[in-house]
């Protein structure tokens, strides 16, 4: 119990550092948010026609925007740790490694949630959707589960690429194949929510799958984080 408390305390301290840095600079939030908005806009221009079922396009556009803007945010969040060799300082500290992982995860997931507050309304407006309360809270659940799964995988892989060459290009190459189940589940569940007759059974099925993915990959990432980071 003591160890868990130490990890949580350390994680919160790291997340607080990221939040404070971001509050002062707003660099990641602005770039991620604006990029996400642009992806939604381009998707609307590329795919939206009046005669096509817009809810399916809206779901796909939403998760593409989350995936791309998330990669941008991950790259920048860890670039901050590389600058000035902050990551070495973190590793030399007595903090458990899992606390570093959890702290960075909390940071990136919270940034993505803030960006989704911009991207979701953009999708609803540009794709001419309407959201009732029963749809909205379910969408919130799916966004939460999907964003968390994305963050778990992204944090572990982005940390592993800290000292790699061509890390900007490699980040996208290594993340996207692994998070395809998250994107698949997110799009299917969002489509089930947005369609004219909302399918609660489909939503529940995909929510369970996303939850399973999150649980499995957080366990794997907790174990693999330290070997990936240490030479």
């Amino acid at each position, binding site marked *: 119990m003591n160890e868990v408390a130490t990890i949580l305390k350390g994680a919160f301290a790291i997340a607080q550092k990221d939040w404070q840095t971001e509050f002062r600079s707003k660099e990641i939030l602005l770039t991620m948010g604006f990029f996400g908005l642009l992806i939604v806009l381009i998707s609307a221009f590329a795919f939206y026609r009046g005669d096509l079922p817009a809810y399916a396009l809206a779901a796909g556009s939403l998760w593409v925007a989350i995936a791309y803007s998330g990669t941008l945010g991950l790259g920048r969040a860890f670039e901050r740790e590389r600058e000035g060799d902050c990551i070495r300082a973190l590793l030399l500290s007595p903090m458990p490694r899992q606390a570093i992982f959890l702290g960075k995860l909390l940071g990136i997931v919270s940034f993505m949630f803030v960006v989704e507050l911009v991207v979701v309304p953009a999708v609803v407006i540009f794709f001419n959707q309407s959201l009732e309360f029963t749809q909205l809270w379910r969408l919130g659940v799916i966004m939460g589960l999907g964003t968390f799964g994305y963050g778990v995988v992204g944090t*572990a892989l982005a940390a592993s690429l800290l000292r*790699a060459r061509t890390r900007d290009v490699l980040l996208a190459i290594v993340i996207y194949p*692994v998070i395809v*189940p998250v994107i698949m589940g997110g799009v299917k569940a969002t489509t089930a929510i947005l369609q004219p007759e909302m399918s609660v059974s489909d939503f529940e099925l995909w929510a369970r*799958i996303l939850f399973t993915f999150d649980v*499995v990959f957080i366990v794997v990432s907790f174990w*693999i984080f330290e070997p*990936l980071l240490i030479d």
Partner: protein
Amino acid sequence: MQSTKPESRTPIGLWLCVALSIGMLGRGFWMAFYYAPTEKVMGFVQKIFYFHVPAAWIMFLATFVCAVGSIGYLITRKDKWDVIGDAAVELAVLFGAMVLITGPLWGRKAWGAYWVWDVRLTSSLVLVLTLVACKIVRGYAGPSSKQIASGLAVFAVVNSVFVYYSVDIWKGTHPPKIVAKGDLAPQMSETLWFCVAAFIVLFVTLMWSRIRLGHRRGELDSLYHHAAELGVES
């Protein structure tokens, strides 16, 4: 000039594996095209099944071996584990490519389209793409490429578990797992299991060769480093 050191010569066991692979694959082809009866619904194209299914199983086996090698390297940081992981990921990509080529060829006749975004096929594609990403990382990530590729391989093998259970969970259009339930005709079953055995022998042969190549590359790298330390120009 070939080295005369005993450990540099190709072992007799490897030559036997090569001969056995060629023999068993040859017999497997014969059994598939001449011994096994033609399936009455899908006709001749069903015979792809005798290569598609074993290739898929060997792809998963190679992924598992890759995970073992990767976990071994992440824990011990010994190069012998990394060599196993690297060899297995290449073979997993090779057999995965076989699956993704034979599957759509079969699907074109069975389902009327090369690619129907069935979840099992899609998840197999995702697995192969993740393993290709492992190889790209090894080539371009620089000094820490071994541990990054090993970590990514662990993620890939966890993903492969989702692949195996996807038919039951997501109810795709992939053919039901008739092999596990024993619904095949006896000659078809015999042909399939023989092809599986042939593919296993082929996998062992290729792994053995590839591991030897990996060790030789490691030795060559050591020699280059040693030469560089002595100031010898390459």
